């Protein structure tokens, strides 16, 4: 899937389509719609632009971010270079998926479409994947005792359809297709934007060789370039500002980054223990030899 954030209007149709297709119970989020008191208390209004969802979790598999960049910061009256960035966020279905690699039961698996799906009946709710995801996508579902995240509408893909969110998107900000085709599409789109003077466009997820410079907002003037993230993202983004602005990590890393050093440390400690053990046995043996000699 290719997410072109430049054309996102923040209508949240993808969020609703996602919940409808995947039969996510409405109101399992911050506001319990069947709970009259919760509705009256209205805990859901966040006051953060038009975003009342907050973040991805076990019931919001898709989330539209609203980033207001009006003037250099929030305290001054300066409103030069105002822009309102929107981005539809979801699971990135990474090529090197941290969640998939730590899953002890194989509940998380790579599908024939390259996405990462969860077998709900195999998941044991150990939550290793929650900590292993560099994007904070996957969350433990307290109601089912298992984890949930975007599964790229596996059932729809099996029937040859596109995902529910891409189908609902009115501006084609979300496009489902073969990743190689989408990469070409992204490269064309970045080129077209650069030709129009919108030099801040670049691709987050794959390195297609584009470089640019941010034209507006607090980071104006900063150089940006395409970045390949954790071996490539099957859901990749065309961004207009630094990844941090969109809440995406600049250089995400997988938990297995610690594997080589920790294996090294383990080997060294095993060697040290072995040598100490041998030395202890030898001392005991020498003491026994000394006793028999007497």
């Amino acid at each position, binding site marked *: 899937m290719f997410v072109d954030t430049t054309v996102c*209007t923040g209508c949240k149709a993808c969020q*609703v389509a996602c919940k*409808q297709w995947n039969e996510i119970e409405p109101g399992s989020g911050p*506001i319990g*719609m069947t709970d009259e008191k919760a509705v009256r208390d*209205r805990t859901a209004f966040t*006051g953060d632009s038009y975003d009342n969802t907050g973040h991805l979790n076990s019931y919001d598999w898709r989330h539209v971010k609203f980033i207001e960049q009006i*003037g250099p910061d929030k305290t001054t009256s300066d409103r030069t270079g105002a822009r309102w960035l929107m981005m539809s966020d979801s699971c990135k279905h990474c090529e090197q998926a941290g969640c998939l690699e730590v899953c002890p039961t194989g509940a998380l698996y790579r599908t024939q479409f390259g996405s990462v799906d969860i077998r709900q009946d195999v998941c044991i709710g150990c939550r290793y994947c929650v900590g292993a995801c560099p994007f904070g996508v996957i969350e433990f579902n307290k109601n089912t005792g298992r984890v949930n995240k975007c599964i790229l509408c596996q059932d729809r893909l099996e029937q040859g359809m596109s995902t529910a969110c891409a189908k609902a998107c009115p501006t084609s900000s979300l496009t489902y297709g073969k990743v190689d085709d989408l990469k070409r599409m992204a490269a064309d789109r970045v080129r077209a934007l650069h030709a129009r003077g919108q030099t801040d466009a670049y691709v987050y997820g794959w390195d297609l060789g584009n470089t640019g410079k941010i034209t507006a907002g607090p980071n104006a003037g900063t150089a940006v370039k395409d970045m390949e993230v954790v071996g490539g993202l099957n859901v990749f983004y065309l961004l207009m500002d630094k990844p941090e602005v969109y809440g995406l990590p600049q250089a995400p890393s997988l938990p297995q980054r610690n594997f080589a050093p920790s294996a090294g440390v383990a080997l060294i400690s095993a060697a040290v223990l072995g040598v100490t053990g041998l030395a202890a046995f030898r001392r005991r043996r020498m003491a026994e030899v000394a006793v028999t000699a007497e």
Partner: protein
Amino acid sequence: MKNLLYKQDQNPISKIWNVEGNKYNEYAGSEFPTVITTYRLTEHHLSGVMSRYLPWLAELMPELFVEVSPEFAKEKGITNGEYVTVSSSRGKTHARALVTKRLRPFNLDGKIVHHVGMPWHWGYMGISTSDIANNTSAFVADPNVSIHEAKAFTCKIEKGKV
């Protein structure tokens, strides 16, 4: 405030029903100094009667809010998410404040006039209920097709539920 572009301030044949329950804000030296515009949200269809009953949509826009600029919020001591009262000579509406730099104060003939914005889809029924924005807008209609001026009018903003 005098109209700097035209001699005529108001359409002389616009339909005004100045009766009890539909009082019209006087705009010269008024106690309602703030400009207010009302608009739609993508989560709602038409007035919200079809969409406020849908939980998936209701949870995305749980409550009525009024967008105010940080300058105005500072002047009134309003913090983000706090309840404010929007009133006019016709009625009043309670809403949460959404402080955003997307709204900016106008400098009109050397005078700072603040602008607030409020979506108008809420009502007393459905899953997501709130006060109605059009409680504050007077029914004044254009002379040709009687479209009323609920999109832009004047109001007064007060901190808290008054």
